[in-house]
């Protein structure tokens, strides 16, 4: 049986992934490699932030304490965030950014495809919108993987380096905990573990066609299901939440 708390936490998981990934991509505003890509990345950032807004708004309603999406975004501490660790890692160079986007968008494409049939109507409605966005993010990063992977020696080296950096964070994407499992049993959430073979089937051919070797990783990073994060999340929050922390309830 699904508990209220489990649903609330699951919505934070969905919302926080959007919020933190969106914030990272927004850092490319004015820092993209070319003007067109600069606009593309910030455009994709806005997709993530829109998704975060929808999920966190609903999370606030489920929690039932009158908190808005802004309260949840700007007034929670690091340990109360449930985004996957990969979302909070620094962008690195453009090839790293693309490597992460491929990993995350392919995962999100499968996740939101599954959530489109969620028995929770609100989750299904948000997922129906998000799946279109994720598909575009996936195509955009996939095409860049081909270009960089088969481009120059330097672009290939950088892309391989990006996948080497991020691969140890891919295990966590498919981690289930008791709350997630309960929700999956009730048809509300997706069984993340079941998505892993689909994800590998989606990503492996792209890496092969980009001349990228799948990194050998002995240890997968973990922690975010329990609110344990890398040192990077705190830095993101201190920047993102600065205004609300310094001037509580400021409006403009």
């Amino acid at each position: 049986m699904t508990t209220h708390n489990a649903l609330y936490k699951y919505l934070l998981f969905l919302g926080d992934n959007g919020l933190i990934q969106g914030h990272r991509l927004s850092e490319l505003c004015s820092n993209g490699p070319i003007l067109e890509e600069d606009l593309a990345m910030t455009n994709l950032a806005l997709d993530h932030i829109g998704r975060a807004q929808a999920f966190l708004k609903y999370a606030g309603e489920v929690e039932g304490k009158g908190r808005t999406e802004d309260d949840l975004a700007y007034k929670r501490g690091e340990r109360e965030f449930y985004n996957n660790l990969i979302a909070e890692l620094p962008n690195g160079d453009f090839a790293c950014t693309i490597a992460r986007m491929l990993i995350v968008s392919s995962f999100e494409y499968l996740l939101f495809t599954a959530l489109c049939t969620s028995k929770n109507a609100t989750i299904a409605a948000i997922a129906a919108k998000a799946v279109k966005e994720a598909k575009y993010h996936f195509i955009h990063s996939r095409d860049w993987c081909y270009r960089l992977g088969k481009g120059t020696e330097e672009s290939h080296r950088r892309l391989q380096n990006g996948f080497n950096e991020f691969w140890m964070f891919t295990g966590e994407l498919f981690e289930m905990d008791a709350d997630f499992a309960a929700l999956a049993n009730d048809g509300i959430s997706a069984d993340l573990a079941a998505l892993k073979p689909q994800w590998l089937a989606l990503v492996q051919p792209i890496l092969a066609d980009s001349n990228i070797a799948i990194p050998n990783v002995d240890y997968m990073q973990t922690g975010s299901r329990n609110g344990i994060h890398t040192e990077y999340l705190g830095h993101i929050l201190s920047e993102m939440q600065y205004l609300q922390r310094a001037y509580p309830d400021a409006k403009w």
Partner: protein
Amino acid sequence: MDTQLDLWEVFIQKKDGSEHAHVGSVHASDSKMALQNARDIYTRRNEGTSIWVVPSNYITASNPEDASMLFDPSTEKVYRHPTFYVVPAGAKQI
């Protein structure tokens, strides 16, 4: 050295059935990138239902110096305009 990627012209169709109108240009190294860049630059606010991209160097432009030769001869020939016909009632688009 020119480090810019190739230039592409972008045409957007606002709604089904209407024409593709030129909206601007983007830089891109291939046609897929040109389409994606055009999408992210020119259709973020519901502007379109379809995009064409064309390599700019495939467009042949008339020479501004030829403008008088090309266009002036038509300015005084009112009989080229169908203004001497009565438009049938009910024909909305002619």
